[in-house]
């Protein structure tokens, strides 16, 4: 069985590549959908960790994912509402959503230390992939200056999350 961690990373990479292969890259409405979906995927996984994690640090990390990604989504939704931009579904957003659902389904079959490790492993791979998409696809293709500025502003959140997840991964013996 392919580990979920690398399956998701491959899915994100493939979707991102598909988007890059388009002549023009994602439009602002498509970028908005990708951002909102990316945040929601991590909120859902974080909620699961809040209820299912055994390690206190992993549970706290899950709680922080819910808080931070909700905050980023609130800022994103407020901006696109103000700009009258309606998020437009697209292959990348769909791929993220599907990968997120697969991850949650897999995590729900695990418990104890196995759950903690699988959750954190996924968080590392996920934040790495999202950061790469932000840098290589979303920021370069954002047309609206405020949308681009928001992406630049929230990027450090993903960096901080990735650092934190990596530290937890090492702590759990990953």
């Amino acid at each position, binding site marked *: 069985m392919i580990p979920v961690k690398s399956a998701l990373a491959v899915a994100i990479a493939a979707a991102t590549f598909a988007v890059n292969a388009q002549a023009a890259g994602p439009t602002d409405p498509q970028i908005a959908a990708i951002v909102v979906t990316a945040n929601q995927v991590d909120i859902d996984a974080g909620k699961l960790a809040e209820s299912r994690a055994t390690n206190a640090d992993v549970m706290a990390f899950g709680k922080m994912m819910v808080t931070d990604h909700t905050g980023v989504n609130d800022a994103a939704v407020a901006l696109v509402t103000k700009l009258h931009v309606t998020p437009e579904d697209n292959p990348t957003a769909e791929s993220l959503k599907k990968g997120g659902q697969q991850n949650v389904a897999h995590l729900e079959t695990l418990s104890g230390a196995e759950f903690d490790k699988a959750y954190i492993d996924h968080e590392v791979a996920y934040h790495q992939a999202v950061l790469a998409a932000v840098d290589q696809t979303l920021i370069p293709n954002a047309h609206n200056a405020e949308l681009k500025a928001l992406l630049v502003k929230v990027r*450090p959140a993903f960096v901080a999350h990735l650092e934190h997840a990596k530290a937890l991964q090492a702590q759990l013996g990953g």
Partner: protein
Amino acid sequence: MNASTPTTVAGERTPDGGCRTIDATALKADLVRRRLLAAAGAAAVVAGFAGRRARAAPAAATVHTVRIDAFAFQPPVVTVDLGDTIRWRNDDPVPHTVTAKGGFDSGAIAAGGTWSYTATQRGRFAYICSFHPTMKGTLIVR
């Protein structure tokens, strides 16, 4: 004026319940003197307060602002005088804290929120965001 003719009269009760007039010139003078002394005393107290206030605060205590932006404290090191206030302003879309172990702790500062702290102790205080511990800052109180 003729000292034998009183210009000021007052009434005084007699032991038998009656009333007689007395020369109140001296009494009035004494009353005036007492009022003058009281006024002078009050003025001295007020002047003393004003002087004390001026001496205690030669310059008003300063408010320093530290922005929390892009998951960092800006500026990362802030130096203040004892009695100054530091105001952290969270310009990020997520909540942060300002936490110095064994020192001050803001608790969660919401996105767009602020937290103020008045420096009551001299020293060098390292602080972090307890939610995102890679965020580090230093407060120096002279």
